[in-house]
């Protein structure tokens, strides 16, 4: 029980002090779950990370809630999930209200203009990372063809992203069975 409360507290600290999200959570949780609390062995954690990256959803949240369940069952799952989700809700509501109040000002309207290319810059860094990973896994030719085909279907044919994602999963499964 004491361990569960320490875990909840550690998750709160991670969520409140980790910028970047997504992949950044993986080393943060490793420090906490493996090194400081010893809930998982390093080997188990590596296996967890492999599964986390292969399933959709919130990277950090999946690790946090599974650690909670592993440590204290359903109660553990609930408490660690709340510790992961609730701070984000509170921070966003406050930030959103604040930004909207400032929105009328000329400065904020100007900032918005420049935010768009910055967000694209953030996207580009993820695009390059994911392309790199898929080329490593599939080879140059296959990786580029899948990217180009997906782009054509999504951008030119306006196909529903979910269908293309499911198509890629099916392709991956067929590919390994050949």
């Amino acid at each position: 029980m004491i361990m569960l409360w320490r875990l909840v507290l550690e998750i709160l600290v991670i969520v409140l002090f980790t910028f970047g999200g997504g992949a950044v959570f993986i080393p943060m949780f490793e420090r906490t779950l493996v090194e400081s609390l010893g809930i998982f062995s390093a080997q188990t954690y590596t296996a967890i990370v492999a599964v986390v990256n292969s399933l959709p959803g919130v990277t950090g949240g999946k690790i946090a809630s599974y650690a909670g369940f592993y440590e204290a069952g359903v109660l553990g799952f609930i408490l660690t999930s709340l510790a992961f989700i609730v701070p984000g809700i509170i921070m966003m509501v406050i930030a959103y209200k604040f930004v909207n109040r400032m929105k009328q000002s000329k400065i904020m309207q100007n900032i918005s203009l420049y935010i768009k290319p910055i967000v694209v810059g953030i996207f580009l860094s993820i695009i390059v990372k994911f392309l790199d990973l898929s080329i490593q896994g599939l080879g140059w030719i296959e990786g580029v063809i899948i990217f180009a085909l997906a782009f054509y279907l999504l951008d030119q044919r306006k196909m529903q992203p979910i269908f293309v994602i499911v198509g890629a999963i099916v392709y991956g499964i067929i590919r390994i069975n050949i």
Partner: protein
Amino acid sequence: MKEILEIFISFLKVGMFGYGGGSAVAPLIHKEAVEKRGWIDDDEFIDIVAIANSLPGASMVEMSTAIGYKIKGLLGGIVAAFSITLPSMIAFTIVMIFLNDLITEEVLNAVTVPVLAVVAALMFSLSKKFFLQSKKELSLAIIVLVYLGSFPLIYFIRIYPSLVIVAIVAYVF
């Protein structure tokens, strides 16, 4: 009530099909909230992605909260945040309990790798759209300059996107 249900369905969908976590899920949120439901426009979407990237914590929780909050207040925000996160957290825990011994890393990788290429294409398509919008608002030189300022900082030097946002905004003004 109808809106709450729509929020639940939309963000559930994003959570169940959103690979990559964080900002990688933004294109799916854009599809649901901007294109399909018309809850927010492109500019509001950009603001929300930027705020979520500037705050600590999970971007997926924060992006969904902001959109839910805009449509239906605090309840909308809470429903959005829980529907985007909880299903994948439950699914993950179940997979870890029951299926962990059955699935090998090889199988997992095979499934994930083509999906990552699709997510990259999704993000590229949305980036293209935003680039064309920016071209109407700013000169090409400035846009390229901001890309060259933000992308290498985040990708090669691994500076947090939040710091890049603050630095570029501070530099411009």
